[in-house]
């Protein structure tokens, strides 16, 4: 330490920490595959937070570790340390820097949230009136149309009902009822979510979207699937003993596959319509 000036060490450490943090931010692979238009927005945001978090982690833990090693009491030294009480500039600095970081994250998260469709007052656009469940009490809340789909009616509407311990999906335009969600890729899908008994929560980890199904309060979720495949639908809100088994799937089809699925199911379901309606209010 005697030869190299402190400034240079700090500089090198700073560059190293920055590089490591940026790398960890981009290569953490902590999240599952992205399968909705919203997912990349959330992931980029998450990765930025991971990068900032890693940097802060390294700096603070580094300082702790350094102190613990460097400033441990030496054998035979029973005295006190230099009585440094504080440093006004330093304290201002470490109030302002986190302040700037959190305000930045706050602004960024408002931005991401708007992009995801969170700021949309769903129900004001009046495009889904026919298909909405008869819930006159209040406007539904949830994540709605993104700036890209703003003002346009969704291309597919599905009514989702949560009950102990299953999800029911009703396609109002084609009279199909299923226990598994099927959607075409690249289409703007609107889910009208309701709950029969207790609160449930509709979550597709690969979509990065979650919305509670609340008894007495309609909610909505609007998304565009971007990757074909089968993904889990998980109930995320404690809904009773078998909450953990309230799982099903969402299948994202190519448009042709989706049409085939729809026709098959429309036909298949005609004879048993009464039965399905009975369990699906």
């Amino acid at each position, binding site marked *: 330490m005697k030869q190299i000036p402190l400034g240079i060490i700090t500089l090198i450490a700073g560059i190293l920490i920055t590089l490591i943090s940026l790398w960890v931010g981009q290569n953490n692979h902590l999240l599952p595959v992205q399968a909705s238009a919203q997912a990349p927005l959330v992931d980029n945001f998450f990765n930025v937070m991971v990068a900032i978090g890693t940097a802060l982690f390294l700096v603070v833990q580094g300082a702790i570790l350094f*102190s613990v090693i460097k400033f441990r009491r030496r054998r035979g030294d*029973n005295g006190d340390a230099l009585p440094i009480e504080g440093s006004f500039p330093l304290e201002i600095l470490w109030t302002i820097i986190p*302040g700037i970081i959190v305000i930045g994250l706050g602004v960024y998260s408002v931005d991401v949230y708007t992009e995801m469709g969170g700021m949309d007052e769903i129900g004001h656009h009046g495009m889904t009136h026919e298909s909405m469940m008869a819930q006159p009490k209040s406007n539904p809340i949830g994540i709605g149309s993104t700036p890209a789909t703003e003002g346009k009616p969704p291309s597919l509407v599905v009514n989702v009902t949560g009950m102990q311990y299953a999800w029911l999906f009703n396609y109002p335009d084609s009279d199909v009822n299923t226990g598994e969600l099927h959607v075409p890729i690249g289409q703007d899908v609107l889910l009208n979510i309701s709950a029969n008994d207790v609160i449930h929560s509709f979550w597709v980890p690969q979509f990065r979207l979650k919305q509670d199904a609340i008894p007495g309060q309609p909610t909505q979720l609007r998304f565009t699937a971007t990757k074909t495949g089968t993904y889990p639908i998980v109930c995320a809100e404690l809904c009773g003993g078998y909450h953990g088994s309230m799982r099903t799937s969402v299948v994202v089809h190519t448009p042709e596959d989706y049409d085939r699925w729809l026709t098959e199911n429309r036909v298949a379901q005609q004879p048993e319509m009464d039965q399905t309606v009975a369990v699906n209010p």
Partner: protein
Amino acid sequence: MTQLETPKTTAVVTHHEVPQKWKWYDYFTFNIDHKVIGIQYLVTAFIFYLIGGLMAMAIRIELNTPDADFLDPNLYNAFMTNHGTLMIFMWIVPAAIGGFGNFLIPLMVGARDMAFPKLNAIAFWLNPPAGALLLGSFFFGGSQSGWTAYPPLSLITANTAQSMWILAIVLVGTSSILGALNFVVTILKMKVPSMQWTQMPLFCWAILATSVLALLSTPVLAAGLVLLLFDINFGTSFFKPDAGGNVVLYQHLFWFYSHPAVYLMILPIFGIMSEVIPVHARKPIFGYKAIAYSSLAICIIGLFVWVHHMFTSGTPPWMRMFFTISTLIVAVPTGVKIFGWVATLWGGKIRFTSAMLFAIGLLSMFVVGGLGGVTLGTAPFDIHVHDTYYVVGHFHYVLFGGSVFGIYAGIYHWFPKMTGRMMNETWGRVHFALTFVGTHLTFLPMHQLGLQGMPRRVAMYDPQFAGINHLCTIGAMILGISVIPFFLNAIWSWMNGPKASDNPWEALTLEWTTTSPPAIENWEVLPVVTHGPYDYGRSDEGKPTAQTAASV
């Protein structure tokens, strides 16, 4: 000093008729001495900690495999609910505020007792029946709706057990309101005149902020729970959706208390940190005022962040945004404290006593928990991980890392003062090592579980998560084992440990100026404050230097 007589607890205790020492059985009576009450709180809390910990072990054994093959799913939920409830309401809050607060506040401000000693005893004695109600509820199926007790689930499952749960929480809530009132008055009115506000130990500032917070928020929780009780038992429908009730309203009432509740748990711990670190680093605390004011700032901002628990329920967009920003802002005063403690270590002469190890362990874990908390504060990301194991991982970093480590640090630090005996340091280190490793192994992988898609509060889960869960369970077993050296050490040292001097750590706050354990009314003659609580390294008149451990 040797002739002992039982105090008449009903009589007004005057300076002359009290004995100099308490007998063991005094701890089982309605004693009104703040030190006895503090120890009563601590011991009771540790018992509930053990029970809650056994429940956690059962939970983790169940989660070792994807199927519900160890506990019946309903019983699992009862364990999960009561684990959380016991840990929050019967462990951290009573130990940190009731235990340390009662034992230390009068000693630290130079008072002979709390402002209202009988009220203090009443506040403590509300706790055992509350714990009994919680445990008794298992005979009626156990409350199963999580420690949050959201309706309608809490309205339809195990009604008797749920009602007992509500009564238990209302009892501890009452206890904490009475306690808080007592702390505020004691600190404001009974501080020795020679102590300036800026000479008051930081633990007192923390308890002051905590008490204000408790007074403002606890009644709201009580209100919400009483309405729930009415819905369950008396046919009202505040929260029944099919009868015009609003289920989201309950969440607002609940979180208006329960978010601040996490600061209730953590602020006293911050106070403990601010006492332990300077003593064992032999340096004044860095930025006394910043640390004191940041407690007050956390207390105020903490009242405006509750909706971050409701980002995925029925919350209008503007609310999600407002609460994202306010939540993120709490990170700033919290950061100020962390940096202050790190700067206190920097340039110190650090003694690795068990107390200090736990304090440093807390610091490093709180950094992880705090960073995780910032990510959760942002609505768009929270929507993905809300109600998942990411959250379980995060709050255990804060609650286990943040609080349990702090309580352990406090015990190792004040044990000599409380009992007059020293604890064994070697076993303290073993205890620390096991706890530190166990905590990371249990709770770090949980973050990934949540990110990948495992929801919380589940007895059965998708088999793809089995590997990571297995790791968490091994960690939990290490944590379970880690309490053994602690309890053996504490019990053995209490009975046979080497006698402690009045001020074994050469600390400067007032509690170290009396005997260990302190005499019944704390001091023969009330102390006069001649120096600040953290004046380490200054050789002013009238304060002990590190070489001469004399009392003031």
